């Protein structure tokens, strides 16, 4: 292995949060500044490194870190267009979330533990994004489970430990299934590298039966994290976690890891043509569609704001799977770009939910009357996120929806439009009542548990600016969708490569 810059960069990107994470564990609880410095240094260093990598990939450079674990088992981290998309998302949102979390946990306990695992979590996510083969993917996928468990359980209340246990039961089972699938696949093919266009196309048709079975196992494994119904049960339960964690779970790390894995398996392992031939895309499409509708219906019945958002995630993440399940580059673009768009929209919503809870003690939708006037900027950010989720142009969500719809029609699957329409209406059904309460209902006489932060703004700066910034991202991702380096343009680049256009 050669230790030049291109071979080190992907590894360095993973380490840039791993090392600070390890040090943070050792930081004494009261050393607030040191911990903050470590956190921010890691986050910014990662951002810089990712920037270098984007530039390099744009120039056509190949980045690959290979570490041989054992003969035939190699840890591969490399940067293709798809990984860059996901890495950039996680890196940018990590920085924002770190700032948010520092503010959010200002006066809480066990912060060293929290931020340590927080960093591990991001390292694992980045590792998933950069995985160059299935083995590496599985490894980081499991590490992610382990790193997020303490975050979910962080509060230590009985509900928190319960939620964390449920989370773990689901995700570990899913991880095992993924492992079994990966091992099985490996016995057929040898090392399973991620190759644009897939690597199983050349296998003999005799093995197709096995490939279908393997896909089922892999999908069941990935579907847990991607919260495909009926494997979604953990997600609403893990809402007991602190808001930054929920944001991270929903927007960046866990569910995305599952969805990203599905994308990887379909495009870079099976190859979309083979997957379509084997009828796998249909199965995926049906599952995704069902999840989209089911998640939204359940979201409508939730009064807890975070639970409602959680079910919304169940629904929205399946857009990615839906895009993957449709044969054709347009739908692929829709699915991939939603990976980013859902991330920035959902993180905005969760930040806002956290702000309401922290500032006013408002945790339920039914308590949200008039919050728009008490916290206008937060509510504005929430509004942008919510409308984006519904798919109102020109916010990011519309872009995804458009490409999914168009992709469905191009693929001859007109029913996709029905799913999208239903989902839009249902999304409106659970988001608009919140906006109505927030902006149009009168203020209550007092808030459940109000905090005064003595700033010029409605809440602490570290809490206020992250959602505002991500809301701006949502708008920009929509308004500048056709500009160079936008998520949409990257998704197009990926789709072109996957389809060999």
């Amino acid at each position: 292995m050669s230790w030049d810059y291109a071979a080190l960069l992907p590894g360095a990107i993973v380490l840039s949060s791993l090392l600070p994470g390890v040090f943070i564990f050792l930081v004494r609880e009261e050393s607030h500044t040191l911990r903050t410095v470590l956190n921010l240094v890691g986050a910014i260093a990662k951002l810089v490194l990712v920037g270098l990598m984007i530039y390099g990939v744009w120039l056509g450079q190949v980045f690959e870190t290979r570490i041989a674990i054992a003969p035939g088992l190699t840890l591969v981290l490399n940067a293709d267009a798809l990984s860059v998309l996901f890495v950039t998302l996680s890196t940018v949102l990590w920085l924002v979330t770190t700032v948010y979390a520092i503010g959010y946990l200002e006066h809480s306990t066990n912060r060293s533990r929290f931020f340590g695992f927080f960093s591990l979590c991001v390292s694992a996510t980045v590792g998933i994004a950069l995985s160059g083969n299935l083995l590496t993917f599985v490894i980081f996928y499991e590490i992610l489970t382990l790193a997020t468990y303490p975050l979910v359980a962080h509060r230590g209340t009985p509900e928190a430990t319960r939620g964390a246990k449920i989370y773990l039961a689901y995700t570990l089972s899913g991880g095992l299934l993924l492992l079994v699938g990966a091992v099985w696949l490996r016995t057929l093919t040898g090392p399973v590298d991620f190759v644009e266009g897939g690597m199983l196309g050349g296998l003999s048709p005799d093995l197709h039966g096995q490939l279908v079975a393997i896909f089922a196992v892999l999908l069941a494994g990935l579907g847990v994290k991607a919260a495909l119904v009926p494997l979604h049960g953990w997600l609403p339960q893990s809402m007991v976690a602190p808001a930054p964690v929920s944001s991270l779970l929903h927007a960046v790390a866990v569910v995305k890891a599952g969805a990203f894995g599905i994308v990887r398996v379909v495009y870079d392992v099976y190859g979309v043509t083979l997957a379509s031939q084997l009828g796998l895309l249909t199965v995926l499409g049906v599952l995704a569609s069902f999840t989209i509708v089911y998640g939204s219906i359940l979201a409508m019945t939730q009064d807890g704001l975070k639970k409602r958002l959680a079910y919304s995630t169940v629904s929205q993440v399946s857009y990615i799977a839906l895009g993957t399940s449709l044969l054709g580059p347009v739908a692929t673009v829709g699915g991939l770009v939603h990976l980013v768009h859902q991330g920035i929209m959902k993180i905005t919503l969760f930040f806002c939910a956290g702000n309401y809870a922290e500032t006013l003690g408002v945790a339920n939708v039914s308590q949200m009357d008039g919050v728009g006037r008490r916290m206008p900027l937060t509510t504005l950010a929430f509004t942008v996120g919510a409308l984006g989720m519904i798919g109102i142009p020109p916010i990011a969500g519309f872009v995804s929806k458009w490409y999914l719809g168009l992709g469905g029609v191009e693929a001859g699957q007109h029913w996709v439009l029905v799913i999208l329409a239903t989902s839009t209406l249902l999304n409106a059904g659970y988001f608009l009542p919140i906006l109505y309460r927030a902006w149009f209902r009168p203020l209550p006489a007092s808030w459940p548990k109000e905090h005064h932060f003595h700033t010029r703004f409605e809440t602490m700066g570290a809490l206020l600016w992250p959602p505002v910034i991500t809301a701006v991202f949502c708008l920009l991702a929509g308004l500048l969708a056709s500009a160079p380096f936008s998520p949409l343009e990257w998704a197009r680049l990926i789709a072109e490569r996957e389809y060999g256009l």
Partner: protein
Amino acid sequence: MTDPLVLCIALPLVGAMLVTALPRWSVRLGIVSALATAGAAVALTAAVWQQGTLHLILGGWDAQLAIALRADGLATALVLMANLVGLGISVYATGYFHDRLRVRSFWPLWLLLWAALNGLFLAGDLFNLYVMLELLGIAAAALGALTGNRDAVAANLRYLLVGLLGSISYLLGVALLYTAHGTLDLGLLAQRIAAAPELFAVNAAAMALMVAGLALKAALFPLHFWLPPAHANAPAPVSAALSALVVKAAFYLILRLWLDLFWPITGMAAAMLPALLGAVAVLWGSWRALRAERLKLLAAYSTVAQIGYLFLFLPLLTATPPGPARDDLLAALLLMAVTHGFAKAGFFLAAGLVQTNAGHDRIDDLGGTAQRLPATTFAIALSGSALIGLPPSGSFIGKWLLMQGAIATGQWWWVIVVTTGSLLASAYVFRVLSRAFGLEPTPLKFITDARAEVPALTLALISVAVLGLASGPLWTLLGLSAAGSGTGGGV
């Protein structure tokens, strides 16, 4: 006499004598011996790495009577593991025992056990193996009963008797083999067994006696009955040694016999029996661990399960023709054994710390303690994930290859066993870990007691990070021995 092969056995033996002679100095002498022994093991590994399998005939007699030592890749890897774990246990033990009587009886027995362990791994003939086996059993039982409380004594008395029974059975098998083939040297014997298929009845009887005797010591289900009480009631460093090393030594011997000696006469049917029992061990052990009320009992049952995994490899090895696939399986087997050694030792050491701190080890009441000792909890978490087989631990790679072998040889049912076992393992590990997230006051520092926590943490870390991410050297070690010895089935 400065050959590392000899030093590995002699140094702890000398150390044992010294601490017996100078009990006042036992801690200092003990730790010096531990360091020296571990150093010798490292030197041995380096020597094997460079020169391939090492042979040594001690005493100058002819090969029949002399003490034959041999270090091939398999043995070397286990020796290195055992000695690093031993060093960790020793460092931990310096701070663990406070009662002077205990201190004085711990060190001689521990060093004796260590010597027996190294001897067992390195012995090249059945006779020496027998001696080391007996020595190991006696030292282990004595150490296990060190706390002197009733449960510990009763459990370890049972352990002693089981060990004796196993050794006698083994010895009878040795006798039969000697009758038939007239030699005890492993290499010679392997050739003669392969060359004399007409003696299969004697060979089979000998094998049944030896393997059954050793299975008793290796605690293969349902012969594990003695293990949980013995390991759970011993002092923490002893539990660590018993669970991580002693049981593994018995398994090592089974493997040696199976692959080196009796390979020509074993078939799929014979390999299935231990594997089936191993499968039940995985499930039953994990289930019992999940239901255990005490932390150390949990760890002990976990050992039962983990030993079960090792037996699953036998039918896979049988079904896989020599080649890279079989090498992978062997390496995976070794990797799982070694990882379990580090992980279980780390787990027990950490559990001991929890017990000392809380005054008990009832899992349901651990809350505050687990939270007060972050480094300890971390060690439990790390070694726990190695026990589950989560990446990047060594057992993850091991399980990966195990399942790969199972699917490749069409024995897919083991995959179900492995996954179920892993799920149960996660359940019991996280049952403990979830106690660490409570509303109790939080610690201000990561490490509270360096002398005890650093060894536990280091061992756990090795099982996770080092073995999981850099297990390639194991293949190299095994490859060296395959080239060097060329016996029978070719370990």
